[in-house]
């Protein structure tokens, strides 16, 4: 009897762990956008979470109004978010390149509200029922005691692919090396012949494109869509980025995964109301012990 109960406990723990990894994968993909933009433009783009919401609506409209298949809908979402990211950077942030960080931060919050209200105006405040973009069947393991949904599989796989491709891009391509150069020293990068403005724009494009993917995956796993859908995951992913070490790409992955797992296990074993509080407490503790986050480098401000 106790042995069977113990086995059940292990199985349910594994279930929570796997779905936590899936949620964490989404956080990781979103956190990449925060961390890359911070690394290169040295700013926190608080509108990033709302780009995810726009991605969600792009998928929703593509599938429901245009009747596109899920793959095409995700591609539309990537394109819409990429363009949106470039436009936001050009219109809202580029004019502030020499402004104080506070002015930029306030602008970012303004952009966030703008996007939410624009969505409210167009789509209304009622929650839309989102059709999943994933149509892979769930697998069940250990005589059905462990179930892994199609969404979970796809999310984790997509996250791994993104990490690998992005790492190769940065390590192996000229544009990727230019991004690293800009993140270290903008003036020196200009002296290499690198167009810093274009590189920043590219970073926003990539981060926002990834938000388009994240929007599709997030809404597939949690299928209600409102103008505020991106806001909480956005904040959590920001926490994940800080947790892992803002500016670090592997940090975004580890931070995202850990956050997803901690959140899910807290919900399961402690209290679902307390889960968010626990997540933020963990962040505070990590930052007290290691202010640069788990994989963060020392922040050495150059003059």
């Amino acid at each position, binding site marked *: 009897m106790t042995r069977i109960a113990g086995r059940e406990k292990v199985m349910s723990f594994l279930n929570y762990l796997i779905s936590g990894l899936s949620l964490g994968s989404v956080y990781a993909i979103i956190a990449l956008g925060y961390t890359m933009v911070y690394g290169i433009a040295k700013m926190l783009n608080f509108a990033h979470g709302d780009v995810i919401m726009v991605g969600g609506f792009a998928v929703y409209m593509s599938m429901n109004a245009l009747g596109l298949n899920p793959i095409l809908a995700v591609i539309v979402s990537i394109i819409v978010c990429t363009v949106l990211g470039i436009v936001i950077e050009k219109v809202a942030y580029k004019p502030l390149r020499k402004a104080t960080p506070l002015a930029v931060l306030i602008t970012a919050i303004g952009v966030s509200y703008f996007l939410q209200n624009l969505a409210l105006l167009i789509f209304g405040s009622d929650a839309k029922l989102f059709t999943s973009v994933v149509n892979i069947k769930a697998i069940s393991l250990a005589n059905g005691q462990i179930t892994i949904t199609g969404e979970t599989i796809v999310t984790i796989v997509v996250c791994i692919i993104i990490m690998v491709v992005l790492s190769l891009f940065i390590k192996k391509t*000229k544009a990727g090396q*230019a991004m*690293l*150069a800009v993140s270290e*020293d903008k*003036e*020196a990068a*200009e*002296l290499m012949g690198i167009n810093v403005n274009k590189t920043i724009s590219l970073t926003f494009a990539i981060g926002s494109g990834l938000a388009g993917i994240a929007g599709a995956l997030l809404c597939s796993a949690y299928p209600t869509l409102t103008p505020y859908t991106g806001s909480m995951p956005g904040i959590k992913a920001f926490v994940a980025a800080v947790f892992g070490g803002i500016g670090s790409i592997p940090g975004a992955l580890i931070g995202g995964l850990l956050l997803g797992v901690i959140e899910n296990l807290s919900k399961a074993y402690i209290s679902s109301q307390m889960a968010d509080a626990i997540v933020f407490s963990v962040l505070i503790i990590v930052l007290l012990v290691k202010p640069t986050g788990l994989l963060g*480098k020392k922040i050495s401000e150059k003059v």
Partner: protein
Amino acid sequence: MAMLEVKDLEVTYGVIKAIKGVSFEVNEGEVISLIGANGAGKTTILHAVSGLLGKAGGTVTYEGQDITAYPAHKIVELGMAHVPEGRRVFAQLSVLENLKLGAYTRKDKKELEDTLQTVYKRFPRLEERKNQMAGTLSGGEQQMLAMGRALMSHPKLILMDEPSMGLSPILVEEIFSIIRDISASGTTVLLVEQNAKKALAIADRAYVLETGNIILSGSAEELINDESVKKAYLGE
């Protein structure tokens, strides 16, 4: 026509005018030194020439082209490289990655490989350490990397800002002998130095800068023998 012609250049930081109408020229093949005390405005002039800083007045002409309003990354493409004060190597990247970034504007892979070999020949230590992070190099090695990185763009004109700063006397000798080599291989050099003795010894002509104005110019020989230069800059 001069290769680089700076006319009535003015540069301001906010309300402070750091450069107050400076004119000078660099002819092809020359080594020109710009000397002056700390804070005279040497770095500011180089930053304005290479496009890192905007100009409040005056013009910069390079090979007959008005480049006054060009951004820095475009000026690099025209064949002007700038070795900045304090080296500014990319500390988190390897020596080789730094060098490759120096060739960012160049397309031809084969030519690039040749230039890399030339740079390695000139700085054998860079080849030995090509996979090492630039931040872990010594000061002298970082200076060599900064120079090698600039040479990777195959420049016609190279600007150098205090390349000998903070280096031991032996390394200072080495750096100046490399500058001589670079000049001998056909690259025009505009050198900024506080080490006036060395800078005049290597130069064809020189300009003396004092709080944003050029107060003296002439052949290096004339300036070495000038009483006021001797007193203020050569410590004699």
